[in-house]
């Protein structure tokens, strides 16, 4: 028994150490790649930054030259990258080229809102996907299964942008239940979360359905029933536990969809998040902000995967 606990603890440590190394590599790769991509974009960065800073009524060649001088954009690219890496080593993300504020402050503020939105979206998607998926998976080919397949294809095919507007029209304008846009309180989270959550649930409800359908037809379920468990106990003790493995793993995969989704949803709902900030930073050629934002997103992805790994270890009946 003791030996087993030791083994488990060691393997958990191994997971954490592995993900820690991965985080380091991700930080370096994301920082360097986003730097290279920003430099590969056509056009003069000083002009783009001046445009982002002063707006088109005020920006001109003189303001662009002032920006070039101030930010040292005339230095060789490898010196600029080297100075960013040097600062990164001291946990300093630098200052936004456009707004002059510390990148870490900007990212921290916006990330808080985006995580709130992403969390709301995942919770919403699970609230929808679990009941729908389980019901469909328990009787594959049944009415619920076929209907939910049709609805999920429909929802996945609608762009998040259009879905958001439809939801606003229905719930905010017609019914007056929720506010349209902005962020002043928890009620502002509902419609953006629902927009993203529906898109997520469209796919994850099918993953849940397949996992449940597989588990329902597995031999060990038959065995559980034969040994005298009621259908309900077999479902809760065995089917749910086994079926949740691919579902939890899939929630991790959905991180990518979420990052893409927040960019659009934040813009539609005038929501103060990191996706919106990233788009602005790319347009404004704000290299420091792009690097900082991409770094934060990359590290979150690694962190999310770590959580998923650990959760799967706990759930998996074979490791218990």
């Amino acid at each position, binding site marked *: 028994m003791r030996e087993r606990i030791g083994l488990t603890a060691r393997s958990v440590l191994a997971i954490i150490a592995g993900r820690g190394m991965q985080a380091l590599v991700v930080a370096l790769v994301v920082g360097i790649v986003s730097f290279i991509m920003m430099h590969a974009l056509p*056009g*003069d960065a000083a*002009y*783009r930054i*001046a*445009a982002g*800073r*002063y*707006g*088109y*009524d*005020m*920006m*001109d*060649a*003189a*303001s*662009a030259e*002032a920006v070039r001088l101030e930010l040292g954009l005339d230095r060789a690219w490898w010196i600029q990258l080297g100075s960013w890496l040097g600062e990164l080593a001291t946990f300093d993300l630098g200052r936004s080229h*456009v*707004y*002059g*504020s510390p990148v870490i402050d900007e990212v921290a*503020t916006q990330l808080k809102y985006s995580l709130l939105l992403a969390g709301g979206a995942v919770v919403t998607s699970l*609230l929808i996907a*679990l*009941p729908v998926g*389980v*019901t469909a998976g328990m009787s594959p080919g049944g009415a619920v299964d076929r209907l939910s397949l049709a609805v999920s294809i429909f929802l996945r095919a609608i762009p998040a942008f259009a879905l958001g*507007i439809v939801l*606003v*029209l229905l719930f*905010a*304008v017609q019914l*007056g*239940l*929720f*506010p*349209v*846009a*902005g*962020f*002043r*309180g*928890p*009620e502002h989270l*509902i419609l953006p979360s629902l927009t993203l959550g529906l898109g997520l649930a469209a796919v994850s409800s099918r993953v849940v359905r397949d996992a449940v359908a597989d588990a329902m037809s597995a031999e060990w379920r038959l065995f559980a029933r034969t040994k005298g468990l009621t259908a*309900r106990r077999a*479902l*809760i003790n065995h089917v749910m536990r086994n079926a949740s493995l691919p579902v939890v793993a899939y929630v991790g995969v959905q991180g990518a969809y979420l990052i893409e989704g927040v960019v659009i949803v934040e*813009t*539609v*709902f*005038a*929501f*103060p998040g990191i996706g919106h900030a990233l788009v*602005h930073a790319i*347009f404004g050629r704000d290299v420091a902000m792009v690097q900082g934002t991409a770094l934060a997103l990359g590290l979150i992805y690694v962190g999310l995967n770590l959580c998923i790994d650990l959760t799967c270890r706990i759930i998996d009946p074979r490791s218990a």
Partner: protein
Amino acid sequence: MTFRLLVKGLLPIPLLAVVMVHAPVFAQAKTGVVVTSPWEIASADPAVSGFGIQSLQIMENLVDADAQGALRPGLATDWSVAADGLRWTFTLREGVSFHDGSELNATHAAKALNRSLEQPGVLAKAPITRISADQGAVIFELERAFASLPSLLAHATTVIPAPSASDAEGVPTKLIGTGPFRVTEFSPPQAVEMARFDDYWGKAPMIETASYLAAGRAETRALLAESGDADLVFTLDPAGFARLGDVKGVDTIAVPIPRVVTLKVNASHPFLNDPRARKALSLAIDRAGIATAITRFPEGAATQLFPPVLLGWHDEMLEPLQTDPNISQALLAELGWSMGDDNILVRDGERFTLELRTFPDRPELPLIAAALQDQWRAIGVELEVNVSSYSIIPEGHKDGTLEVALYARNYALTPDPIGTVLQDFGAGGGDWGAMGWENEPVAEALETIAASADENQRAKAISIVAKELQAGLPVIPIVWYQHTVSIANGLQGVIIDPLQRSYGLSELFWAE
């Protein structure tokens, strides 16, 4: 079964909680107002976000302007200039306090203005040699006479932040000013929450609170207006404006503003260096069509560069710009162009192909570019449209690669348009104005307008400028802008400022 119960049991809980949070209080009269526009307020620095800070009446200028553009006292009670025109004195208002309780004084005002002089902005373009404080007044010393200096001091980048608003390096990082509204919460770049400032030196606002939300998408803004979430919504797209016209509880208005969609033409380009070529391109443009179908305000079709709202600059006597593809083709034939096999004009083996640069931040610009592409093709001119960042326009001006560019220019960045016009059409041209177009009489007339305070002399000079611009077409005017606004029913005292210096929050009140 369990799961169906789960759905039934769990889902309504968050829904109910939210409905309760969001339920408006019907019993009390409204004391606050919510304003929405597309423009983000990303920073507390007037050099970056001055327009938002000024429009929300958080910080103020030495000089203010009314809705007609006439200057009136702001933080300065009066101003005067020495006989040689080289030394201006702005007497500061006494007893003005900032939102943090500190007092405004001349030393601080001079310091703030010196900072805006160092930043890109209107002051940097004026012949200012020194700004200093002297016994309750701010003194400007100039290199040469410049009559429109007070107008520059009404510009958004010259508002005065409080001393405590700036960080150690002198960069304003907090929204603290002297205006009728103080900031209670700033969530850059989208939202600003404000409350009435009780120690305001002027007339106290009637509303108690104001919220600002920047919503980048026109659809979102229209929905905010329709749902009643926002009381005052600025800059609607044509579809949203039309739709809101039919919505109960919301009024819409459109006010002409001195912003003009213009086509910048590289007058040193071999195809475009003859004024007849530029005239031919202008004659091929169906302005009425563009104004009707794209911007949807037929009266906005430009007949000259300066719109009627630019009082004193719009010239009624000027012969309006025409549309006539036949004359256009005749002019091009005169210049040696003949129709090639592919219906594109050819001269000395060269096809008449131009690149047009524009940007999508104003969504109508790419549409207008597509219309121009079509209309010019009809006279045999091929247009390649390049939609990118607006910075490619000043960039192309500088390196000489720009051929034609489409943008919207605000000619009243300062209440007196001379600041902008001088920059655009003065000697050497400007990033957002003439390129490769030198016109001695215009340059001279502009210097006169800038230096002189004599109304007659100015009017004569302005008339020369308007005529020469119409004849030489260094930029080709297309449509004049309308400022579109939606107003919630019951909201009174709305003043739409054509100069867009203010949202007029301090004058608003709710009908009983």
